[in-house]
C-alpha cells in the first residue's frame, strides 16, 4: 500500500512539474513574442546625457534634464521619427568630472550614437575621448575652449566669449561720455575665466571699453566691500560671467547700497549685465526687485515674451506635467533645443536612407548650414554648423528686467569683434 501511495505521489509530483515547465515556457515565448512585436515597428536610437541633476549647478541642470527628457518623449509619442524611437538615458554626474567619465563609458557600452554633455570642466576633460570614439557631442557649456582642437564638440549657441563681447559692444554703443569703465564679475573656473582673455583681445582690437578689474567671486555672502571698491574706481558697468546665485547676492547688496542704475548707463551708478547662465527667471526669483534693470543675453527665447518659442515650450512642459518653475526656465528651453538638434540630424540622416551611426550624425551636423540651417522655435536664430563653424545659434538677443520680467531689447544681433579676434 505504502509503495502504491508513494508511486502515486511521485507521479502527481512529476505531472505538476511538467505542467509548471510547460506554462513557464509558454509565458516566456509569449513575452519574447510581445517584446519583438513591440520593437518590430522601428529602430531605437540611443543617446546619452550626463549632467548635474544634484549637487552644484543642479538648479540649471534640473530643468535642462527635464527639457531633454520631455522633448524626446514628445518625439516618440508623436512619432516624429515614424516608428523609430529615441532612447535617451539621463544620468546624474553631480558636477564631477570623474563621474561624468564613468557615465560616458556606460553610455558607450550601451551603444549611443549621440552624446549630450553638461559642464565646461567635463567637456574639456573628455575632449580627447570624444575624438577617439568619434561621437558628436552637444554640451550645455558654451565655453569657446571646448571646440579648440576638437572635431566632435558642437556648441548649441554662441560662446560665452561672444556673449560677453556682444554685451561690451552694447555698452560702447549705448554709453554716453568717455570710454566706459567696466569690471568683470566671474566664476572662479574655466567657465568664468574663458571670456576674460577674449574680451581683452577685443579691447586690443579696438573695442572701446576700459577693463578696470576682474573679480573672481568665491562663496561670498556679502559684496559690499567689492561694490564700494568698484564705485571708488569709477566703474560704470559690471559684466557677469557666472551662475545666478552670486549675481543675485551682488545685486541685492548693490540695491541696498543704492548703486544700481535705473536706466542703462546712469551716471554715478552701476549697470549690471550678464551672459546666459547669469539670467533667466531664477535670477528674478533669487534677487527680487534688485534684478530690475539687469541686462542679459542669450540665444534662447524666453517665456515672458510671447511668441512661437514660448508657446512651444509651455505646451511641451504642460503636456508632460512640469511645474511653472521648470516650464518657464530658459534652461528648460536649453535642454529642449539640444534634443531638437539631435532629433533633427537623425531625421535628416533617415530621410537620406542612411544608417544612423555616429559618423552619419556627425556629417549631418556639419552639413547644417545655408539652406539646410535648422530653425527650432526656442532660439532667436537658426542653428548652423560646418567644418569651421562650431557655434549653433550665432545671433544673440539682449533682454532686460522691466517690472519683474525679462523683456526683449531690439532684435537679435551678432558680435562684430568676435570675428576680428578669431
Amino acid at each position, binding site marked *: 500500500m505504502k509503495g502504491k501511495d508513494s508511486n502515486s505521489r511521485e507521479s502527481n509530483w512529476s505531472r505538476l512539474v511538467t505542467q509548471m515547465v510547460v506554462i513557464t515556457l509558454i509565458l516566456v515565448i509569449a513575452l519574447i513574442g510581445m517584446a519583438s512585436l513591440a520593437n518590430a515597428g522601428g529602430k531605437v536610437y540611443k543617446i546619452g546625457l550626463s549632467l548635474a*541633476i*544634484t*549637487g552644484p549647478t*543642479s*538648479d540649471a541642470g*534640473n530643468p535642462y534634464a527635464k527639457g531633454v527628457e520631455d522633448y524626446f518623449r514628445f518625439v516618440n509619442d508623436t512619432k516624429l521619427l515614424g516608428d523609430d524611437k529615441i532612447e535617451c538615458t539621463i*544620468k*546624474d554626474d*553631480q558636477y*564631477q*568630472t*570623474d*563621474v561624468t*567619465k*564613468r557615465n560616458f*563609458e*556606460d553610455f*558607450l*557600452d550601451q551603444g549611443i550614437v549621440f552624446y549630450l554633455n553638461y559642464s*565646461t*570642466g567635463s567637456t*574639456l*576633460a573628455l*575632449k*580627447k*575621448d570624444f575624438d*577617439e*570614439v568619434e561621437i558628436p557631442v552637444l554640451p550645455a557649456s558654451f565655453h569657446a575652449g571646448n571646440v579648440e582642437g576638437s572635431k566632435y564638440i558642437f556648441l548649441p549657441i554662441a560662446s560665452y566669449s561672444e556673449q560677453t563681447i556682444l554685451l561690451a559692444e552694447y555698452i560702447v554703443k549705448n554709453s554716453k561720455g568717455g570710454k566706459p569703465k567696466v569690471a568683470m564679475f566671474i566664476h*572662479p*573656473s*574655466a567657465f568664468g*575665466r574663458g571670456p576674460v582673455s577674449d574680451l581683452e583681445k577685443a579691447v586690443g582690437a579696438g573695442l572701446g571699453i576700459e577693463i578696470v578689474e576682474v573679480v573672481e567671486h568665491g562663496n561670498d555672502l556679502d559684496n559690499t566691500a567689492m561694490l564700494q571698491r568698484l564705485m571708488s574706481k569709477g566703474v560704470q558697468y559690471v559684466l557677469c560671467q557666472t551662475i545666478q546665485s552670486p549675481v543675485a547676492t551682488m545685486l541685492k547688496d548693490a540695491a541696498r547700497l543704492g548703486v544700481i542704475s535705473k536706466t542703462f548707463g546712469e551716471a554715478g551708478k552701476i549697470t549690471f549685465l550678464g551672459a546666459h547662465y547669469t539670467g533667466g527667471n531664477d535670477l528674478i526669483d533669487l534677487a527680487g526687485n534688485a534684478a530690475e534693470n539687469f541686462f542679459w543675453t542669450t540665444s534662447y527665447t524666453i517665456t515672458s515674451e510671447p511668441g512661437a518659442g514660448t508657446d512651444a515650450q509651455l505646451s511641451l512642459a504642460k503636456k508632460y506635467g512640469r511645474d511653472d*518653475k*521648470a516650464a518657464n526656465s530658459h534652461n528648460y528651453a536649453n535642454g529642449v533645443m539640444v534634443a531638437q538638434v539631435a532629433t533633427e540630424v537623425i531625421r535628416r540622416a533617415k530621410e537620406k536612407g542612411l544608417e544612423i551611426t555616429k559618423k552619419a550624425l556627425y556629417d549631418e551636423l556639419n552639413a547644417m548650414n545655408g539652406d539646410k540651417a535648422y530653425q527650432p522655435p526656442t532660439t532667436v536664430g537658426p542653428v548652423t554648423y560646418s567644418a569651421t563653424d562650431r557655434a549653433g545659434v550665432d545671433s544673440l538677443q539682449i533682454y532686460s528686467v522691466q517690472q519683474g520680467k525679462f523683456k526683449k531689447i531690439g532684435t537679435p544681433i551678432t558680435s562684430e569683434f568676435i570675428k576680428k579676434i578669431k
Partner: protein
Amino acid sequence: MSVNRWLATGNFFTAYQEEQRTFLTNLDRLIFSIFLLILFTWPIFFPLNRTYMLVVDNILVAVIAVLGLNLVTGFAGLISIGHAAFVGVGAYTIASFSRVLGDSHILLTHFWLILILIGGLFGAIMGAIVGLPSLRLKHLYLAIATLSFQMIFEWAIKFLTFFNQGQTISVGRVMWFTGEIGRENHYLFWYYVTLTLIILLGFGIRNLFKTRYGRALVAVRDNDRAADAMGMHPGLTKVYAFALSGFLAGVAGAVHAFLYKGAGIESFTLHHSITYLAMAIVGGLGTLNGSFWGPTAIQILNLQVEKFSEYASNYLPSAMNLATALRPLTFGLVIVLFLMFEPRGIANWWRIAKSYTKTWPFRY
C-alpha cells in the same frame, strides 16, 4: 607555534620571530595565494564592461591612497585632513611632465612606471614638508596644518596658469610590450598595474612593521614621551610618517592621472580628503586590511547612494534639492555609526570572522 604549519587551532608561539611572520600558517599562505590568483584571473573569465572596470580601478587607486593615510593616521596617530592634496601632488607631477613635454612624450608613454615613482617621490617630499609642523604641533593643531596644505594646494592649482587653472591637463596613452594601450584595454591594463602596485606596497608596509622603523610609528602614536625615552626621535618619526604617507598618496595620484588620462583639481578637493578619511575609518584605522575594506565599502556605498539619489530626484521637490543632500548625509551617517558602534572598522569584522575559522576543526 603548532608543529604542523597547516593547522592553527591556537597560538603556540615560542619565539618573537614566529609572531612576526606574514603568514602564520601554510593554510593562510595558500588561501592568500589562491586569492591573488583569483584577483589576477577573474577579468579573463568574467570580463566587465568599461564602466565597471573603471569603478574597480577607482577602488584600487583609493586603496593605495588609503594605505598611505592609514600609515600616518592609523599607525602613527597623526590626523591628516589634506590627504587628497598629496594624491593631487602625484597626479600633478604627471600632468606637469605632460604640460612641459607634451602629453605623448616618450617619457610619459614608455617610462610611465618611473614617472609613477617620481610622482610618489614628489608626494613624499611634500609630505615631509607638511609634516614639519609635527615637530612642534600635536593633535588637532596638526590636523589644521594638514588642512591648510589642502587649501594652499587647491588655491595654487586653481590660480596658476601652469596648472591650467585647475582644468584638466591631459595625459596621453601609455605603451606596453604589445604596443599602445588602446581604448579597449585601457581600464584592464591599469587594473593589473594598480593591483601589482598594491601587492608590492602592501607587502612593503607589512614588512616595515617587522622593523624598528615601523614599530617606531606605533610607539610614537601610543606614547611619544615613552618612545622618546626609549631612544626614538618622535619628531623625525612623525615627519617620516608623513613622507611615507605622501609617497603612497603620490603613487595613487600618478596612477589616477594615467587612468583618467589627465589631472584636474576636481578630483583632489577637501571633499576627497574627507572621503579618504572616511574610507580609513570605515575600513579600520591602524589595520592593513582596513585599507582594502574601506575604499571598497565606501565606493560601493557611493555608487548605491548615487543611484538612489538619482531615482529620488525624480520624486523629491527639486526646489528643496533633497537628493543633493543624500550623499553627504549618508557619508556622515556611516562615519558616525562606525565611530559609535564599530570604531575598529570592517577590519574587526574580518578579524572576528577569521578567528571563527581558526577554531576549525578543533576548538581551543
